[in-house]
């Protein structure tokens, strides 16, 4: 009989186990305390740095929505007209997101293929392309948009380029994760018949991974619609720009603001629903 199984050993194990549990619990407690302290302290700090305090402003949270709603209700008859009036701006916002997603995804496909082990055209440059994607991903859209607005003037193109740039980096990383799971046999087969690198990629890899690509791109489209609305607010056209105008006018144009809120909300929800349904279909189709 071995030592550990003796009654003495078992009680020792029991003591050790309980001690370990206590220690674990203590660590958990300390971590929790630390976390709570961080949250409370951070909240307090943010509150101090804010122009208006949290507790002063809390009862005023609904004042603005109420103002907007009451004015919109007063001029309810004008609402359908506003909705139609702002539809082109909404279309522009959606188009910025759509074109940026498409262009960004195309760049991302190339970048991701160039940075996947086993598929890359120049294996030595894989780290270079990865860093390029990291940097592209790290740049917030607003940075590029503002610089481009200075150079190119306002309008949808700066926003489109800015979002496409970020999208290329973000999708590139996800795409290259997908590529890593691609089966290499078709690629080898194509190589054996003398296909060039681009032929191997287009005929051997893309058909395998395109459902995943599409799924990620759809997700990105949802995000980009929001981004494109925000960029409009800083001067890059679309519905965000109209919203900024209506807001800076203040009272008297809140009915227009309400119409824009409605349009934006409905669009985001509709795109989210449609895209999640499509993505669901894509992943289900793959599982079969």
């Amino acid at each position: 009989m071995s030592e550990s199984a003796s009654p003495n050993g078992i009680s020792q194990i029991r003591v050790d186990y309980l001690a370990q549990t206590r220690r674990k619990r203590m660590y958990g407690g300390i971590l929790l305390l630390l976390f709570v302290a961080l949250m409370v302290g951070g909240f307090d700090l943010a509150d101090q740095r804010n122009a208006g305090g949290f507790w002063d402003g809390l009862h005023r949270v609904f004042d603005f929505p109420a103002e907007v709603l009451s004015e919109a209700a007063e001029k309810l008859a004008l609402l359908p007209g506003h909705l139609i009036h702002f539809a082109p701006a909404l279309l522009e916002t959606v188009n910025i997101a759509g074109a940026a997603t498409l262009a960004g995804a195309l760049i991302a496909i190339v970048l991701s293929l160039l940075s996947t082990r086993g598929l890359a055209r120049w294996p030595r440059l894989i780290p270079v392309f990865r860093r390029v994607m990291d940097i592209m991903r790290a740049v917030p859209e607003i940075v590029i948009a503002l610089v481009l607005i200075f150079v190119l003037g306002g309008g949808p193109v700066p926003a489109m380029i800015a979002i496409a740039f970020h999208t290329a980096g973000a999708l590139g990383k996800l795409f290259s994760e997908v590529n890593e799971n691609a089966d290499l046999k078709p690629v080898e087969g194509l190589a054996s018949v003398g296909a060039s690198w681009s032929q191997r990629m287009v005929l051997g890899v893309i058909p395998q991974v395109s459902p995943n690509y599409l799924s990620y791109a759809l997700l990105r489209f949802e995000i980009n619609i929001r981004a494109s609305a925000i960029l409009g607010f800083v001067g890059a056209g679309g519905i965000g720009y109209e919203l900024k105008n209506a807001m800076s006018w203040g009272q008297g144009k809140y009915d227009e603001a309400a119409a824009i809120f409605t349009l934006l909300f409905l669009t985001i929800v509709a795109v989210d629903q449609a895209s999640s349904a499509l993505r669901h279909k894509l992943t289900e189709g793959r599982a079969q």
Partner: protein
Amino acid sequence: MTTATVQAQKLAAEQLFSRKRLFAFGLPTLALAYLLYIFFAFDVLGLTSRASLDNARTLVADSYSYKTHVSRDNRSGTVTVAIEGERKGTYPEGTAPDWVSLGEDTVIDLGNGHVVKYADEEIHYDIPGYGLITANPGRSGVATTFPDGPLPDWINASKNRVTITTDEGRLTITRNRTEVLRYFAGWELFFFTLDSPFHGRSFTDIVGLAVSSDQLEPGQSNLSAMWEDFINNAMWRHGEVFWAIFETILMAFLGTLGAAIVALPMGFLAARNFTPLRSVRFAFRRVFDFLRGVDALIWTIVLARAFGPGPLTGALAILLTDSGTFGKMFSEALENVDKKQIEGVQSTGAKPVQRYRFGVIPQITPVLLSQILYYLESNTRSATIIGAITGGGIGLLLTQAMITQKDWEEVTYYIILVILMVMIMDWLSGILRRRLIAGGEPTKRGKSRFAGAGLKRYLENAPWAR
């Protein structure tokens, strides 16, 4: 096998081929058509006429170079030397960089033999290969004598104003004022401004001073004096910039974790297997949709009205939007938990709270943490953008610097800091994700700890990447 079935199969195969072919060509054509439509809808051709190359040139030049102004008031004769022509970059009276010699006559050496001299009344500019230009600003205008021959196009002379632009610098003379600009590469006064005793010293000198004990500022160690001068640098305001970065990270941190805290209980209430009441589930799901659908932009606008601009507003806007996102994800994760573990805990006589604590929470923790960390990184970027709208953090500094349209070196500095900030957050969140989920092993996410096959599939299929 009969001929008929072979025929039918062949037909089916051919149909499949033609469908695939149509798809393979149709999709790229559709994409191309859409881009073509965008090309005209966005008026890309008109852009070429609206784009300002001058703006682009100043932006690029300013982002890596700076200019020093040497200007003279022609009436009083006082000469000031100022970096970027700003008050905070002005040399103290009687001092100047070594290429400017003050005295009876001010001699400015622009390099490559270009010398400008502010004599008593006259201004001389000696340009090698062209000749000596003499100007005499007075009440009646700027009387200038040029070397013989037609004026080259880099000289712009009128009765009241003469501008000479060379590769070495630029001389502008008006009736009241004479100014020479000389361009240098780099960021001016990045570490120490002119009033700091550490200005103009070499790197080794600085390091030597940092460890030496003779104090340049009496009563203060050199290192702390250096730090103080650097942080309070009036030109670059490093202290404020670091605060702004911190504020942005704070917004992301409070927003993301606050959202997670709010969303967890709501996630339970929206999950099929924890809330049997269909109406409750439905209500909470619509709440999530609403929070997500309103989006950070509108939340920011609404909240800024109540709380004013600042980091708190940004944090709350992120919190509200992401409560919706997290609520949706958490409820999906909860619907995918493995029942067996809960039943196992139940079989030991555990009460409902204990069942959740020991049967459910350990299962979903990795998924939750990985999502939260992912969003923490992505929200650092969002906080920059929200800061630009609501007026807090580095986003505000960035837009302020851009609106002036001249401090592009500051804009470049902020952009580099933002990119570094996001990359560091990305890196940290990646490390933490791997640590927390794989239990220290740097393997692909979630191999050992996921008991539930459903959860594992959820993890693999749900790209919450943003």
